[in-house]
């Protein structure tokens, strides 16, 4: 158990270090000079050089990297090249927005996938199971942004039940916050839910074929109670793995969905940063996303152990 924890932590730290080098490296080779974009193209070379110096872009890449990483470790994300505002608070601000979206979408996906997948598995040879299965296939095929556009067309433009886009912080107006959250969370959640349903289905199917479940049935338990009492925890292990991976997909999906729904989250911050060549900001946001994904995977690893006692014994 301890060994596993140490091992996973080591993997996490190494991944983070490698990721930071990669993120920094990509930014360094990106074409386009942030100083020139800020000053306008007709700016004199001297003015550009002066601004590069101000940004610290004239230093060696190694120094820039060490400074950047050192700052990050101390919680200092630096100052944006373009808006001249501290980046840390901006990311924190936007991350909250994205987090609401991702967590709600995750809940939608789970609430949808767990029962649907289980029913599909339990009835996989009956019409109802097949119908659900076909529906989930359709869901898998639709990208989140398209789902978003379709939902907007139906529920906002045609029916006028919900706002087409926008974002209100929950503290400002909780009612509006919920209204505006419904459609984006659904478009992300429905698609992820469809994908997750497939995994739940196959995990439950596997479990259904296990000896211990047959034994439980033989004892006289009805199919669903048997599955509930003996199967679900076993089926959860592969599903949790997928959930971890899906969280990464959700964060990426949020970038696109935020654009469709005009939500000022991390994704829109990232896109703006790229087009303004606000490289430090982009670097920071990407790094935050990478850390989020790696940490989630790390937690998922730990969660296995909690779910599956066999993993607690050293291998």
């Amino acid at each position, binding site marked *: 158990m301890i060994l596993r924890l140490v091992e996973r932590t080591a993997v996490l730290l190494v991944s983070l270090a490698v990721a930071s080098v990669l993120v920094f490296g990509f930014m360094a080779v*990106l*074409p*386009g*000079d942030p100083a*020139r*974009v*800020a*000053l*306008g*193209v*007709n*700016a*004199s070379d001297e*003015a550009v050089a*002066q*601004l590069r110096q101000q940004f610290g872009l004239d230093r060696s890449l190694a120094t820039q990297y060490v400074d950047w990483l050192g700052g990050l470790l101390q919680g200092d994300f630096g100052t944006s090249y*373009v*808006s*001249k*505002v501290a980046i840390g608070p*901006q990311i924190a*601000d*936007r991350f909250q927005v994205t987090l609401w979206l991702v967590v709600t979408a995750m809940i939608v996906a789970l609430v949808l996938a767990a029962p649907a997948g289980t029913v599909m598995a339990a009835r996989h040879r009956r019409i109802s199971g097949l119908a659900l299965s076909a529906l989930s296939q359709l869901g898998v095929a639709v990208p989140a942004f398209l789902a978003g*556009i379709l939902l*907007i067309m139906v529920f*906002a*433009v045609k029916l*006028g039940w919900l*706002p*087409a*886009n*926008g*974002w209100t912080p929950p503290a400002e107006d909780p009612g509006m916050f919920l209204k505006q959250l419904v459609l984006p969370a659904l478009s992300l959640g429905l698609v992820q839910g469809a994908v997750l349903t497939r995994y739940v289905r196959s995990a439950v199917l596997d479990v259904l074929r296990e000896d211990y479940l047959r034994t439980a049935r033989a004892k006289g338990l009805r199919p669903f109670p048997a599955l509930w009492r003996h199967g679900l925890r076993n089926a959860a292990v592969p599903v949790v793995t997928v959930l971890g991976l899906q969280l990464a997909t959700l964060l990426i999906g949020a970038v696109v969905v935020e*654009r*469709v*729904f*005009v939500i*000022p*989250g991390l994704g*829109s*911050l990232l*896109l*703006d940063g790229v*087009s*303004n*060549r*606000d490289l430090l900001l982009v670097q920071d946001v990407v790094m935050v996303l990478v850390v989020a994904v790696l940490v989630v995977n790390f937690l998922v690893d730990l969660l296995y152990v909690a779910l599956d006692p066999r993993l607690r014994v050293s291998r």
Partner: protein
Amino acid sequence: MKSYPTRAIALLGAALLTATVAACSAGSGTSGGSSPGGDQSLTIGLVAEPASLDFTTTDGAAIPQVLLGNVYNGLVKQDESGKIVPDLAKSWTVSPDRKTYTFELVDNAKFTNGAGFTAADAVFSINRVKTAWTTSLKAAMDVVQEAKAVSPTQLQVTLTKPSNGWLFRMTTRVGAMFSQTGVEKLASDPVGTGPYKFGSWKRGDSIVLQRNDAYWGTKPFFNQVTLKYFKDPTALNNALLTGTINVVGTVQAPEALTQFTSNTKYQVIEGTTNGEVVLSFNNSRPVFKDIRVRQAIRQAIDHKALLDTCFAGRGKLIGSMVPPTDPWYEDLTSVAPFDKAKATAELKAAGATGATLRLRLPTLPYATSCGQVVKSQLEQVGLKVTIDQLEFPAAWLTTVFKNADYDMSIIAHVEPRDLGAVFNAKYYTRYDDPTLVSLLAAADAGDEAAQTDNMKKAARRISEQAAADWLYLIPNLVVADKNLTGLPTNAITESFDLTRLARS
């Protein structure tokens, strides 16, 4: 050339997707207008969000679009028909040698930090362009020799040489008047004398302007105007359809207009802008040294068909670098009429048939769609065209604009009166023409009649020389709630004029 301050194409960033330019106020603050509409508010949907609020150090059209004319005043401004009219200067005179301008200033203007506006602030603002501004626009003040406060309400500016361009530039952001005690936090808390004061900025979402109750002119109707930013044109349209916003400030995709024209809840306003969509030639490339090749390309393009395909037929064909709102506008579309046979023959005579041209496009919707049409039409007269796309702004700016590593490109030049800036040996067009230089110099130094006359000649010169091809002029397309009044028809200044908006 110097007095045509070269400027950013970041401007086009401006162009960003289409004209972000927006009109300016005809009704000056002191005349006419509507009575304030109590605490009514209004939300306008726009495309490009500013990266900062400080246009003295950050380029791009999105900043003056919000602030100029609304939060900041200039001494003078441009009205919707293109005329230079009073703003903080009630009147002005020009000395006989055309080098000294004397401005009589209003005496009741106040900055939102409480300080009164005086000639000393004007001197401070003009000098500050030279000392503190970092964007390339600052070159507009190079021609100023001295700015002097004669009295609190009289300002005298002496130029090193006569320049009509200078007074015109004073209508743009370079002419914005700042408070001597209000330039500490320009990027986040602008201080001006305008009809609105800066309220708040939710980054990534919106900027709120509040009515300035201490405004020296006619106070605006709306208590609060929110400018909300949408990167996605469909989201922008949906926001209007569902009532989240009241105005679509710049329509990105004209083919989507039908959903509004057929609906009685909305009005569609169509006017002109300064945004010339230019098919630019790299005039330093050997193939473009031959005027016959340049002319053949212009004649090979069926502009009407092109406009129908790539901008849903909206917009205006112009034939040179002058929009209809400039006093020296002439319809020059007949200089190079569409003639496929002639174009083919000319190319053959020049020995350019079969030549391969690289059309390097910025990743902007209009450039992408027009690029396809240009390619197909040029291939019909015997040229080979390869298209590649460069990410806009950064990659395009470096490759095409800075390094001139291209044969042809398509970009909207949205800056006002930019003929001299764009057709210039140092600019990415690499257009080296002494005749044009002397025409422009004469226009800048002369009186009004001489200016108009020489600018007409200059516009004709570049059209006849086929220094580039002008695909069309971007229309100003605005969709708004039916009962809104005071929206500008033409968008020819750097500002989105909010001063005359009202609800009937």
